[in-house]
């Protein structure tokens, strides 16, 4: 059986970045949702079956927290500039261009409807496979694919217009 503290060490950071993208780059909202995610995971930990996929399980909890917050309109999630974008191995002017491009893409992802946003981020940002994605979004694999595909199409259209 996986240990809870191991889950924190292995998955905190990736979940945090996911929640931050879901909340338009807001560090404070991501941190609050992160707390809520771990609290819910702690309460449900006994129901995590041995041999199941704890990473997908955690993403499902995080996604529920984020979608609930967005649905309830508790938070407005104004767009905030990303400051933790990876720059490895790039020259300063390339870094700038890379950041600007990435910033633009992330901003557009942030404008997708919440489920499509989650689907695109999880598939391409966090490399979840479709069966995992279906389990996170609590839908069929077909529906998970449809959410990703709709999101990507919309993203492409918006970016082409810019």
């Amino acid at each position, binding site marked *: 059986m996986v240990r809870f503290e191991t889950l924190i060490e292995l998955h*905190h950071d990736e979940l*945090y970045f996911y929640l931050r993208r879901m909340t338009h780059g*807001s*560090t*404070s909202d991501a941190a609050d949702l992160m707390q809520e995610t771990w609290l819910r995971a*702690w309460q449900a930990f006994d129901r995590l079956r041995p041999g199941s996929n704890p990473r997908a399980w955690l993403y499902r909890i995080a996604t529920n927290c984020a979608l609930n917050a967005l649905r309830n309109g508790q938070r407005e999630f104004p767009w905030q500039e990303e*400051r*933790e974008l990876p720059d490895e191995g790039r020259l300063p002017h390339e870094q700038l261009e890379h950041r600007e491009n990435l910033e633009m893409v992330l901003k557009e992802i942030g404008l997708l409807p919440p489920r499509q946003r989650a689907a695109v981020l999880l598939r391409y940002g966090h490399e979840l496979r479709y069966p995992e994605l279906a389990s996170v979004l609590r839908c069929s694999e077909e529906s998970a694919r449809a959410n990703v595909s709709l999101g990507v199409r919309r993203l492409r259209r918006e970016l082409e217009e810019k």
Partner: protein
Amino acid sequence: MNGNAGATGVAQSRERVRDWFARTAPLIEWSEMDSPLGVLYLAQSGAGLCRLTFGGTEDDFRALLPSRAKSRRNPDALGDARKQLDAYFGGSQVRFRLPVDLGEMTCFQQRVLRRASAIPAGELRSYGELARDVGSPRASRAVGQALGRNPVPIVVPCHRVVGSDGKLTGYSGARGIESKRWLLRFEGAPLGEAPHG
């Protein structure tokens, strides 16, 4: 938690989650010591010694700690346990006097292990005898399963329980029957003889 933390946002969140976990989760302290059976890993909860393993790696040992617990290596912890184990492996006929945490076991399993703790070094009991001792004379198999789940071998000497014909039928510790035989020889038990008690 402020919203303009920028590059430290993830680090701050990580620390916040770790702090919360340290306040929420039960603490398990662990330590290791050398022995003739290799490195022994020992862990204790607030209630007592909760895990002892040997013959495996540190990762193997940590994977066995209670899944909700926060574990912390503390070389100064478990002094009593290490002292008594040192005396045992030094040849003293130690009767371990340590609080043991069997909280993850059923009441029946706890009864079996407590009863097994009373078997003196150098003596053997059969599964059937132990089943009778705990008031379930037909439950030899369940007794065997309870002993197989013993989280603190050596300290709870499940190795002193053998088949009714004296056969060494199984051992949950590392290297199985080989370790059981080593422990029984070391204690001077009458190997190969039918147990009596």
